[in-house]
């Protein structure tokens, strides 16, 4: 595709390509690009060696591991459980289904600090749940596990809400066709339903992951914030800000941005690649 082809568009009954594209670019510039470039600018004020030193110190590296590791596990758990929840909400009609459906969105509405405090109270050694986990040797609060739990909580709606409409729109004839061809339930799910759900599941996973990476409010209460062990990157940034180390804070912010962008981009590529064959 040449440059002329790059901007070519098909004549459409709906006018306004120029207007809407212009608005989109302006909006994204104001809301996303300009603040982000400011971050990069600020980070660059300290110079390259100072930047490199800040972002590679052991405490920062450990925080990346905690943040991205916990966010990844949390998103993974959400992908699996969110699929199950969406499945149940779409496929079965039972009393209280609408209540359950409404419950899914609560993690969106609840201030994350409240979620963090609640989870900490529940999971700490003397909490309702924590006291039963303690004897089993499971330390849920003030540990990486606690972070995963908090990030799972705040990411739950994403997978459910992206998978739900796709499941709803799924033609029951596909399953009937598979059954009449002799496929069992598991084969039908794996070979017929899963490929249909895969793109939505991937999107939900990406959203839950992105949300979890940036999460701060709920985690600071439950993690215990021990440097090198349970300190997440957003907290490290806050710590630096409190010490008036603005360049250092933005440097770490830039690293988070780059990693997040790379991961989201690769998920989108995967999405695009899996969809382009037959869409």
């Amino acid at each position, binding site marked *: 595709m040449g440059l002329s082809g790059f901007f070519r568009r098909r004549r459409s009954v709906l006018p306004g390509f120029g207007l809407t594209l212009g608005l989109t670019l302006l909006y994204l510039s104001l809301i996303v690009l300009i603040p982000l470039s400011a971050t990069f600018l600020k980070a660059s004020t300290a110079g390259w060696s100072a930047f490199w030193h800040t972002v590679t110190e052991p405490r920062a590296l450990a925080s990346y591991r905690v943040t991205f590791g916990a966010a990844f596990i949390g998103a993974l758990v959400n992908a699996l459980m969110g699929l199950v929840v969406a499945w149940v909400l779409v496929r079965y009609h039972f009393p209280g289904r609408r209540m359950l459906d409404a419950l899914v969105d609560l993690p969106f509405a609840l201030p994350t600090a409240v979620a963090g405090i609640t989870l900490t109270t529940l999971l700490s050694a003397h909490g309702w749940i924590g006291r039963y986990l303690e004897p089993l040797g499971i330390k849920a609060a003030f540990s990486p596990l606690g972070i995963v739990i908090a990030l799972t909580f705040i990411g739950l709606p994403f997978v459910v809400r992206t998978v739900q409409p796709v499941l709803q729109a799924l033609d029951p004839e*596909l399953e009937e066709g598979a059954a*009449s*061809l*002799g*496929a069992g339930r598991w084969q039908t799910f794996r*070979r017929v339903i899963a490929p*249909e759900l895969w793109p939505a599941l991937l999107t939900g996973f990406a959203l839950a992951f992105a949300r979890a990476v940036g999460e701060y409010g709920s985690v600071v209460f439950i993690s215990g914030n021990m440097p090198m062990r349970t300190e997440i990157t957003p907290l490290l940034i806050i710590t630096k800000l409190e010490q008036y180390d603005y360049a250092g804070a933005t440097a770490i912010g830039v690293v988070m941005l780059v990693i997040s962008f790379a991961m989201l981009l690769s998920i989108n590529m995967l999405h695009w690649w899996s969809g382009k064959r*037959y*869409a």
Partner: protein
Amino acid sequence: MSIEVRHITKRFDGFAALKNVSLKVPAGELVALLGPSGSGKTTLLRVIAGLEVPDEGTVLFDAQDATARSARDRRVGFVFQHYALFRHMTVFENVAFGLRVKPRRERPSRAQIAKRVHELLALVQLERLAERYPSQLSGGQRQRVALARALAVQPKVLLLDEPFGALDAKVRQELRRWLRRLHDEIGITSVFVTHDQDEALEVADRVVILHEGCVEQEGSPEEVYEHPATPFVYRFLGNVNLFHGRIEGSKVHLREFSADAPADLGQEAIPAVAYARPHLLDIDHQPPSGRPHFRATIAHINAAGAVVKIELTTDSGAIVNVELPHERYRQLQLRKGAVVFVTVKDMKVFTQAQSTLGGGI
């Protein structure tokens, strides 16, 4: 394999889709389930396939009760109206699906699967499109892929739900002739659902006409067309003119004309309706002797097509449709507005009670 259903009743939320339906399909036949929408024909097909569980009644395959068998275990090939192809699989993978999901000990080797799929694609004339995705095919091609997919597992019975319903007229015609040839080639017991009487009469060995969840009539295409058992069947199988009146003694007195009443209808004075197909009416300039006839004015002439379609208005204001061969039309030199005499060559009289039974007018 022969199919038999006995006393099938199926309700959906209080609505009875099938009411005590019984039916036999001998092995190797191609049977059409014909009826208007809501007549229960698709439900019946789905009950045979095991996709729907009947409230009452039994389904027998080769005289063995299969009612409790799941769709998976019935070994029927089912072709959906909207194809239900797996869009993330190529044509090849779609056709291979039924072979790939077989239990390991029954599953053919890769080479055998490839061979079988290519045979089937050759059968449906789609060999060159094996690597395409369903979205890259036309409607007719998709339907043939669906058919090949259903045939891949060598089903004992082939069930098709409005197989050509979503296709345009020309493709439909081609595909239904092709389906007939295919059936003659592989000889599999087949049942297809349609609301198109031409399709049913042209393709099927036997036609089963359903109406409001009941079987109205079944028989060969000639039987049901020539000897419709109920007014509903008469009306459903083609265009028809209705004449209302009464039976009195041995005569039937209709608003437009009188004729001899059929002997089997009884002699009391009862309301009756006479049915006559447009091609069973003739037009003349003079009143013919010895045949029932009436006077009418030509309102519209459509001479495009295999026959000339003429719409007339009777003296009482009713509309009558007549179909004449072009030859006869030229000979008569008919003009719009001309007053002519319409002769009834043949008709079928039903009493009002039968008409109500058949769903009313």
